[in-house]
Protein backbone atom coordinates (compact mmCIF):
# COMPACT_ATOMS: atom_id res chain seq x y z
CA UNK A 1 0.00 0.00 0.00
CA UNK A 2 1.55 3.34 -1.00
CA UNK A 3 1.40 6.52 1.10
CA UNK A 4 -1.48 8.09 -0.85
CA UNK A 5 -3.61 4.96 -0.55
CA UNK A 6 -2.89 4.69 3.18
CA UNK A 7 -3.97 8.32 3.70
CA UNK A 8 -7.11 7.92 1.57
CA UNK A 9 -8.14 4.71 3.37
CA UNK A 10 -7.72 6.35 6.77
CA UNK A 11 -9.68 9.46 5.76
CA UNK A 12 -12.47 7.21 4.44
CA UNK A 13 -12.99 5.90 8.00
CA UNK A 14 -14.15 9.43 8.93
CA UNK A 15 -17.11 9.15 6.53
CA UNK A 16 -20.55 8.74 8.03
CA UNK A 17 -23.82 7.43 6.63
CA UNK A 18 -26.19 9.90 4.90
CA UNK A 19 -23.74 12.80 4.82
CA UNK A 20 -22.78 15.38 2.21
CA UNK A 21 -19.04 15.39 1.48
CA UNK A 22 -16.79 17.44 -0.82
CA UNK A 23 -13.44 15.99 -1.92
CA UNK A 24 -10.71 18.31 -3.17
CA UNK A 25 -8.65 17.71 -6.30
CA UNK A 26 -5.74 15.24 -6.17
CA UNK A 27 -5.20 12.92 -3.23
CA UNK A 28 -8.58 13.68 -1.58
CA UNK A 29 -10.37 12.38 -4.70
CA UNK A 30 -9.01 8.90 -3.88
CA UNK A 31 -11.13 8.80 -0.72
CA UNK A 32 -14.20 8.03 -2.84
CA UNK A 33 -12.65 4.65 -3.68
CA UNK A 34 -12.64 3.53 -0.03
CA UNK A 35 -16.12 4.35 1.28
CA UNK A 36 -16.78 1.72 3.98
CA UNK A 37 -19.43 -0.90 3.14
CA UNK A 38 -22.97 -0.09 4.23
CA UNK A 39 -22.43 3.66 4.23
CA UNK A 40 -24.19 5.99 1.78
CA UNK A 41 -22.25 9.20 1.21
CA UNK A 42 -23.40 11.98 -1.12
CA UNK A 43 -20.43 13.54 -2.87
CA UNK A 44 -20.70 17.19 -3.87
CA UNK A 45 -18.52 18.87 -6.43
CA UNK A 46 -18.40 22.67 -6.23
CA UNK A 47 -19.01 23.11 -9.96
CA UNK A 48 -22.60 22.18 -9.17
CA UNK A 49 -23.57 18.57 -8.52
CA UNK A 50 -24.46 16.20 -5.70
CA UNK A 51 -24.24 12.50 -6.51
CA UNK A 52 -21.60 12.11 -9.17
CA UNK A 53 -19.97 8.77 -9.93
CA UNK A 54 -17.22 7.15 -11.95
CA UNK A 55 -16.15 8.25 -15.41
CA UNK A 56 -18.30 6.70 -18.17
CA UNK A 57 -16.76 4.30 -20.71
CA UNK A 58 -14.39 5.86 -23.26
CA UNK A 59 -16.31 7.82 -25.88
CA UNK A 60 -19.51 8.03 -23.77
CA UNK A 61 -18.49 11.02 -21.65
CA UNK A 62 -20.85 14.02 -21.46
CA UNK A 63 -18.99 17.30 -22.09
CA UNK A 64 -21.48 18.96 -19.72
CA UNK A 65 -20.68 16.68 -16.79
CA UNK A 66 -17.34 16.96 -15.00
CA UNK A 67 -15.99 17.29 -11.48
CA UNK A 68 -14.34 20.48 -10.19
CA UNK A 69 -11.03 19.35 -11.66
CA UNK A 70 -12.59 19.17 -15.10
CA UNK A 71 -12.47 15.35 -15.19
CA UNK A 72 -15.43 13.53 -16.75
CA UNK A 73 -17.81 11.92 -14.26
CA UNK A 74 -21.25 10.30 -14.38
CA UNK A 75 -24.44 11.25 -12.54
CA UNK A 76 -25.66 8.49 -10.21
CA UNK A 77 -29.43 7.83 -9.96
CA UNK A 78 -30.77 10.56 -7.64
CA UNK A 79 -28.06 13.06 -8.57
CA UNK A 80 -28.89 16.79 -8.52
CA UNK A 81 -27.28 19.65 -10.44
CA UNK A 82 -27.38 23.35 -9.55
CA UNK A 83 -25.66 26.70 -10.10
CA UNK A 84 -22.56 28.04 -8.36
CA UNK A 85 -24.46 30.23 -5.86
CA UNK A 86 -26.42 27.18 -4.64
CA UNK A 87 -23.25 25.11 -4.59
CA UNK A 88 -21.50 27.54 -2.26
CA UNK A 89 -24.62 28.13 -0.19
CA UNK A 90 -24.42 24.40 0.55
CA UNK A 91 -20.75 24.79 1.48
CA UNK A 92 -21.01 27.92 3.65
CA UNK A 93 -24.50 27.39 4.98
CA UNK A 94 -23.74 24.45 7.27
CA UNK A 95 -25.12 21.84 4.85
CA UNK A 96 -21.77 20.27 3.97
CA UNK A 97 -20.86 17.69 6.62
CA UNK A 98 -17.24 17.25 5.63
CA UNK A 99 -14.58 18.35 3.18
CA UNK A 100 -11.23 16.70 2.48
CA UNK A 101 -8.50 18.96 1.12
CA UNK A 102 -4.83 18.75 0.30
CA UNK A 103 -2.38 20.95 2.18
CA UNK A 104 0.93 22.75 1.74
CA UNK A 105 1.28 23.60 5.44
CA UNK A 106 -0.70 23.36 8.68
CA UNK A 107 0.43 25.29 11.75
CA UNK A 108 0.19 24.52 15.47
CA UNK A 109 -3.25 26.13 15.66
CA UNK A 110 -4.56 23.97 12.82
CA UNK A 111 -4.52 26.82 10.31
CA UNK A 112 -4.18 25.55 6.75
CA UNK A 113 -2.22 27.01 3.84
CA UNK A 114 -3.00 25.37 0.52
CA UNK A 115 -3.58 27.96 -2.18
CA UNK A 116 -0.37 29.71 -3.11
CA UNK A 117 3.43 29.83 -2.88
CA UNK A 118 4.30 33.53 -3.35
CA UNK A 119 6.54 34.15 -6.34
CA UNK A 120 6.44 30.52 -7.42
CA UNK A 121 2.93 29.18 -7.72
CA UNK A 122 -0.20 31.32 -7.72
CA UNK A 123 -3.01 29.00 -8.77
CA UNK A 124 -5.69 30.88 -6.85
CA UNK A 125 -7.92 29.69 -4.05
CA UNK A 126 -10.81 28.39 -6.15
CA UNK A 127 -13.31 27.05 -3.62
CA UNK A 128 -10.77 26.24 -0.89
CA UNK A 129 -11.38 29.33 1.29
CA UNK A 130 -15.15 28.76 1.27
CA UNK A 131 -14.70 25.05 2.03
CA UNK A 132 -12.37 25.61 5.00
CA UNK A 133 -14.49 28.47 6.35
CA UNK A 134 -17.82 26.72 5.85
CA UNK A 135 -17.73 22.92 6.03
CA UNK A 136 -18.75 21.33 9.33
CA UNK A 137 -15.57 19.21 9.40
CA UNK A 138 -12.41 19.98 7.49
CA UNK A 139 -9.91 17.14 7.01
CA UNK A 140 -6.48 17.78 5.56
CA UNK A 141 -5.03 14.82 3.66
CA UNK A 142 -1.34 15.27 2.83
CA UNK A 143 2.13 13.80 3.10
CA UNK A 144 3.76 14.49 6.44
CA UNK A 145 6.82 16.07 4.80
CA UNK A 146 7.72 17.54 1.41
CA UNK A 147 11.19 16.37 0.33
CA UNK A 148 12.00 15.82 4.00
CA UNK A 149 10.79 19.27 5.08
CA UNK A 150 7.96 19.21 7.65
CA UNK A 151 4.58 20.44 6.40
CA UNK A 152 3.22 20.67 9.94
CA UNK A 153 4.88 23.79 11.26
CA UNK A 154 4.97 26.23 14.17
CA UNK A 155 4.03 29.23 12.02
CA UNK A 156 2.78 29.29 8.44
CA UNK A 157 5.32 30.71 6.00
CA UNK A 158 2.68 30.55 3.25
CA UNK A 159 -0.55 32.59 3.04
CA UNK A 160 -3.38 31.06 5.10
CA UNK A 161 -6.50 29.65 3.47
CA UNK A 162 -8.66 30.46 6.50
CA UNK A 163 -8.28 31.51 10.12
CA UNK A 164 -10.63 28.70 11.07
CA UNK A 165 -8.65 25.68 12.33
CA UNK A 166 -9.09 22.40 10.48
CA UNK A 167 -10.67 19.43 12.29
CA UNK A 168 -8.16 16.67 11.53
CA UNK A 169 -4.84 16.12 9.72
CA UNK A 170 -4.25 12.71 8.15
CA UNK A 171 -0.76 12.01 6.78
CA UNK A 172 1.24 8.97 5.72
CA UNK A 173 2.78 8.95 9.22
CA UNK A 174 0.07 10.04 11.62
CA UNK A 175 -3.39 11.31 12.47
CA UNK A 176 -3.27 14.64 14.30
CA UNK A 177 -6.11 16.64 15.80
CA UNK A 178 -5.75 20.39 16.31
CA UNK A 179 -7.11 21.33 19.75
CA UNK A 180 -7.11 24.66 21.57
CA UNK A 181 -4.19 23.42 23.71
CA UNK A 182 -2.14 22.23 20.72
CA UNK A 183 -1.75 19.50 18.11
CA UNK A 184 -2.72 16.11 19.57
CA UNK A 185 -1.05 13.03 18.09
CA UNK A 186 -3.96 10.58 17.92
CA UNK A 187 -2.57 7.78 15.76
CA UNK A 188 0.70 6.69 14.21
CA UNK A 189 1.07 4.62 11.05
CA UNK A 190 2.08 0.98 11.41
CA UNK A 191 5.85 0.71 11.73
CA UNK A 192 6.29 4.42 12.53
CA UNK A 193 7.47 5.51 15.99
CA UNK A 194 6.28 8.53 17.95
CA UNK A 195 9.85 9.81 17.83
CA UNK A 196 9.92 9.54 14.03
CA UNK A 197 6.66 11.53 13.81
CA UNK A 198 8.07 14.16 16.17
CA UNK A 199 11.26 14.40 14.09
CA UNK A 200 9.21 14.92 10.92
CA UNK A 201 7.02 17.60 12.51
CA UNK A 202 8.04 21.24 12.70
CA UNK A 203 6.20 22.04 15.91
CA UNK A 204 5.42 20.50 19.27
CA UNK A 205 2.98 17.58 19.40
CA UNK A 206 0.86 16.64 22.41
CA UNK A 207 1.34 12.91 23.01
CA UNK A 208 -0.75 10.83 25.40
CA UNK A 209 0.60 7.76 27.24
CA UNK A 210 -0.75 5.44 24.59
CA UNK A 211 -1.03 6.29 20.90
CA UNK A 212 -3.20 4.15 18.63
CA UNK A 213 -2.01 2.59 15.40
CA UNK A 214 -3.71 3.94 12.25
CA UNK A 215 -6.37 1.38 11.26
CA UNK A 216 -5.84 1.00 7.53
Amino acid at each position, binding site marked *: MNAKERIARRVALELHDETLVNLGIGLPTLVASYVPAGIRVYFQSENGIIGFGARPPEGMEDV*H*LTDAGGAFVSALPGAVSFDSAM*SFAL*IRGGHLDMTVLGGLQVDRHGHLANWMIPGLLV*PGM*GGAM*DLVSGARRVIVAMNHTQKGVPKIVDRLSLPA*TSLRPVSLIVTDMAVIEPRPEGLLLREIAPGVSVEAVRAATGTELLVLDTVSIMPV
Partner: protein
Amino acid sequence: MRTALSPAAAADLIPDGATVMVGGFMGVGSPHRIIAALVERGARGLTIIANDTARPGVGIGKLITAGCVAKVIVSHIGTNPDTQRRMLADELDVELVPQGTLAERIRAGGSGLGGVLTATGLGTLAGQGHQVVQVDGQDYLVAPALRAAFALVAARSADYARNLVYSLTARNFNPLMAMAADTVIAEANEVVPLGVLAPDAIHTPGILIDHLIERPRMT
Protein backbone atom coordinates in the same frame (compact mmCIF):
# COMPACT_ATOMS: atom_id res chain seq x y z
CA MET B 1 -40.11 38.26 -32.26
CA ARG B 2 -36.45 39.27 -32.11
CA THR B 3 -34.17 37.47 -34.56
CA ALA B 4 -30.97 35.67 -33.61
CA LEU B 5 -27.45 37.02 -34.15
CA SER B 6 -24.48 35.36 -35.78
CA PRO B 7 -21.50 34.89 -33.43
CA ALA B 8 -19.59 37.47 -35.48
CA ALA B 9 -22.38 40.04 -35.11
CA ALA B 10 -22.40 39.40 -31.35
CA ALA B 11 -18.63 39.89 -31.17
CA ASP B 12 -19.02 43.20 -33.02
CA LEU B 13 -21.36 44.44 -30.26
CA ILE B 14 -18.62 44.06 -27.66
CA PRO B 15 -16.11 46.94 -27.87
CA ASP B 16 -12.44 46.65 -26.99
CA GLY B 17 -11.89 47.43 -23.32
CA ALA B 18 -15.35 46.20 -22.26
CA THR B 19 -16.01 44.36 -19.01
CA VAL B 20 -17.47 40.97 -19.89
CA MET B 21 -18.78 38.14 -17.71
CA VAL B 22 -18.27 34.74 -19.29
CA GLY B 23 -20.02 31.62 -18.03
CA GLY B 24 -18.33 28.26 -17.61
CA PHE B 25 -16.20 26.20 -15.26
CA MET B 26 -12.95 24.95 -16.77
CA GLY B 27 -14.59 25.52 -20.16
CA VAL B 28 -17.64 23.41 -19.28
CA GLY B 29 -20.67 25.59 -20.01
CA SER B 30 -18.70 28.37 -21.71
CA PRO B 31 -20.13 30.11 -24.80
CA HIS B 32 -17.59 28.60 -27.18
CA ARG B 33 -18.99 30.09 -30.40
CA ILE B 34 -19.01 33.68 -29.10
CA ILE B 35 -15.51 33.20 -27.67
CA ALA B 36 -14.28 31.99 -31.06
CA ALA B 37 -15.86 35.05 -32.72
CA LEU B 38 -14.17 37.43 -30.23
CA VAL B 39 -10.81 35.82 -31.01
CA GLU B 40 -11.60 36.07 -34.74
CA ARG B 41 -12.49 39.76 -34.40
CA GLY B 42 -9.20 40.40 -32.59
CA ALA B 43 -10.82 41.89 -29.48
CA ARG B 44 -8.41 43.73 -27.18
CA GLY B 45 -8.25 45.03 -23.63
CA LEU B 46 -11.21 43.06 -22.25
CA THR B 47 -11.80 42.65 -18.53
CA ILE B 48 -13.13 39.11 -18.08
CA ILE B 49 -15.14 38.10 -15.00
CA ALA B 50 -15.35 34.31 -14.81
CA ASN B 51 -14.71 31.36 -12.54
CA ASP B 52 -11.38 30.50 -14.17
CA THR B 53 -9.39 30.78 -17.40
CA ALA B 54 -9.70 27.04 -18.22
CA ARG B 55 -6.70 25.66 -20.11
CA PRO B 56 -4.74 26.98 -23.11
CA GLY B 57 -6.88 26.43 -26.20
CA VAL B 58 -10.05 25.72 -24.19
CA GLY B 59 -12.92 28.15 -23.49
CA ILE B 60 -11.71 31.42 -21.93
CA GLY B 61 -8.15 30.10 -22.39
CA LYS B 62 -8.54 30.96 -26.09
CA LEU B 63 -9.17 34.63 -25.23
CA ILE B 64 -6.08 34.69 -22.99
CA THR B 65 -3.79 33.10 -25.56
CA ALA B 66 -5.09 35.38 -28.34
CA GLY B 67 -4.19 38.44 -26.25
CA CYS B 68 -7.79 39.69 -26.01
CA VAL B 69 -7.69 40.19 -22.25
CA ALA B 70 -6.17 42.94 -20.07
CA LYS B 71 -7.61 41.84 -16.74
CA VAL B 72 -9.35 38.81 -15.24
CA ILE B 73 -11.42 38.60 -12.07
CA VAL B 74 -11.48 34.86 -11.33
CA SER B 75 -11.25 32.29 -8.53
CA HIS B 76 -8.29 30.37 -9.95
CA ILE B 77 -5.79 30.29 -12.79
CA GLY B 78 -3.92 27.14 -11.76
CA THR B 79 -4.97 25.16 -14.82
CA ASN B 80 -3.75 27.72 -17.35
CA PRO B 81 0.05 28.22 -17.47
CA ASP B 82 -0.44 30.90 -20.14
CA THR B 83 -2.49 33.03 -17.70
CA GLN B 84 0.20 32.61 -15.04
CA ARG B 85 3.02 33.48 -17.46
CA ARG B 86 1.23 36.64 -18.64
CA MET B 87 0.49 37.65 -15.05
CA LEU B 88 4.15 37.27 -14.03
CA ALA B 89 5.19 39.21 -17.18
CA ASP B 90 2.79 42.05 -16.21
CA GLU B 91 0.82 41.57 -19.43
CA LEU B 92 -2.32 40.53 -17.60
CA ASP B 93 -3.86 41.83 -14.39
CA VAL B 94 -5.27 39.02 -12.24
CA GLU B 95 -7.69 39.61 -9.36
CA LEU B 96 -8.36 36.42 -7.39
CA VAL B 97 -11.67 36.06 -5.54
CA PRO B 98 -12.81 33.01 -3.54
CA GLN B 99 -15.21 31.05 -5.74
CA GLY B 100 -18.23 31.26 -3.46
CA THR B 101 -17.66 34.97 -2.91
CA LEU B 102 -17.38 35.52 -6.67
CA ALA B 103 -20.69 33.72 -7.23
CA GLU B 104 -22.42 35.77 -4.54
CA ARG B 105 -20.96 39.08 -5.75
CA ILE B 106 -22.38 38.37 -9.21
CA ARG B 107 -25.68 37.22 -7.75
CA ALA B 108 -25.86 40.45 -5.74
CA GLY B 109 -25.04 42.46 -8.86
CA GLY B 110 -28.01 40.95 -10.63
CA SER B 111 -30.33 41.17 -7.66
CA GLY B 112 -30.21 44.84 -6.77
CA LEU B 113 -28.06 44.23 -3.70
CA GLY B 114 -25.00 46.29 -2.80
CA GLY B 115 -23.06 43.15 -1.94
CA VAL B 116 -22.97 40.32 0.57
CA LEU B 117 -21.32 39.61 3.93
CA THR B 118 -19.15 36.50 4.16
CA ALA B 119 -16.70 34.98 6.62
CA THR B 120 -14.77 33.44 3.73
CA GLY B 121 -11.36 35.10 3.39
CA LEU B 122 -11.38 36.83 6.78
CA GLY B 123 -7.80 37.41 7.94
CA THR B 124 -6.33 36.16 4.65
CA LEU B 125 -4.84 37.89 1.60
CA ALA B 126 -8.29 37.66 -0.01
CA GLY B 127 -9.67 39.89 2.72
CA GLN B 128 -7.02 42.61 2.42
CA GLY B 129 -8.48 46.00 1.62
CA HIS B 130 -12.02 44.82 2.27
CA GLN B 131 -14.23 46.37 4.89
CA VAL B 132 -15.05 44.17 7.91
CA VAL B 133 -18.40 44.52 9.64
CA GLN B 134 -19.81 42.85 12.72
CA VAL B 135 -23.28 41.31 12.82
CA ASP B 136 -24.45 39.65 16.04
CA GLY B 137 -20.86 39.60 17.30
CA GLN B 138 -19.58 37.80 14.21
CA ASP B 139 -17.05 39.34 11.79
CA TYR B 140 -17.77 39.36 8.08
CA LEU B 141 -16.02 40.70 4.99
CA VAL B 142 -18.02 43.05 2.82
CA ALA B 143 -18.02 41.58 -0.70
CA PRO B 144 -19.35 44.28 -3.04
CA ALA B 145 -21.70 43.47 -5.92
CA LEU B 146 -20.23 42.84 -9.36
CA ARG B 147 -21.83 43.85 -12.64
CA ALA B 148 -20.56 44.00 -16.22
CA ALA B 149 -21.44 45.68 -19.50
CA PHE B 150 -21.85 42.25 -21.13
CA ALA B 151 -22.58 38.70 -20.03
CA LEU B 152 -21.94 35.82 -22.40
CA VAL B 153 -23.74 32.66 -21.34
CA ALA B 154 -24.18 29.14 -22.69
CA ALA B 155 -27.20 26.85 -22.35
CA ARG B 156 -28.20 23.41 -23.52
CA SER B 157 -31.55 24.59 -24.89
CA ALA B 158 -33.17 27.89 -25.78
CA ASP B 159 -36.66 28.47 -27.14
CA TYR B 160 -37.83 31.19 -29.53
CA ALA B 161 -38.50 33.47 -26.51
CA ARG B 162 -34.86 32.93 -25.43
CA ASN B 163 -35.87 30.98 -22.29
CA LEU B 164 -32.84 28.91 -21.25
CA VAL B 165 -32.25 25.44 -19.81
CA TYR B 166 -28.75 24.48 -18.75
CA SER B 167 -27.26 21.01 -18.59
CA LEU B 168 -25.73 19.34 -15.50
CA THR B 169 -22.45 20.98 -14.40
CA ALA B 170 -22.50 23.30 -17.43
CA ARG B 171 -24.94 25.50 -15.47
CA ASN B 172 -22.40 26.88 -12.93
CA PHE B 173 -22.12 30.71 -13.24
CA ASN B 174 -24.36 31.10 -16.31
CA PRO B 175 -27.73 31.85 -14.63
CA LEU B 176 -26.06 34.27 -12.19
CA MET B 177 -24.31 36.19 -14.96
CA ALA B 178 -27.49 36.33 -17.07
CA MET B 179 -28.86 38.62 -14.32
CA ALA B 180 -25.83 40.84 -13.80
CA ALA B 181 -24.96 42.62 -17.07
CA ASP B 182 -26.37 45.47 -19.16
CA THR B 183 -26.38 43.34 -22.31
CA VAL B 184 -26.76 39.56 -22.10
CA ILE B 185 -25.92 37.32 -25.05
CA ALA B 186 -26.72 33.59 -24.95
CA GLU B 187 -25.82 30.66 -27.13
CA ALA B 188 -27.45 27.24 -26.92
CA ASN B 189 -26.79 23.77 -28.31
CA GLU B 190 -30.36 23.68 -29.59
CA VAL B 191 -33.10 26.22 -30.26
CA VAL B 192 -36.64 24.86 -29.98
CA PRO B 193 -40.17 26.22 -30.62
CA LEU B 194 -42.20 27.87 -27.85
CA GLY B 195 -43.86 25.34 -25.57
CA VAL B 196 -41.16 22.71 -25.89
CA LEU B 197 -39.53 23.87 -22.66
CA ALA B 198 -41.98 23.48 -19.76
CA PRO B 199 -42.34 26.56 -17.49
CA ASP B 200 -41.15 24.61 -14.44
CA ALA B 201 -38.04 23.40 -16.26
CA ILE B 202 -36.73 26.81 -17.37
CA HIS B 203 -33.70 28.09 -15.45
CA THR B 204 -33.34 31.59 -16.95
CA PRO B 205 -36.36 33.57 -18.20
CA GLY B 206 -35.82 34.66 -21.79
CA ILE B 207 -36.77 38.25 -21.06
CA LEU B 208 -33.34 38.60 -19.39
CA ILE B 209 -31.54 37.65 -22.60
CA ASP B 210 -30.96 40.52 -25.04
CA HIS B 211 -29.56 38.45 -27.88
CA LEU B 212 -29.61 34.78 -28.79
CA ILE B 213 -26.97 33.35 -31.10
CA GLU B 214 -28.35 31.69 -34.23
CA ARG B 215 -28.50 27.91 -34.48
CA PRO B 216 -25.33 26.27 -35.74
CA ARG B 217 -25.67 25.59 -39.46
CA MET B 218 -24.94 21.89 -39.73
CA THR B 219 -24.47 20.46 -43.21
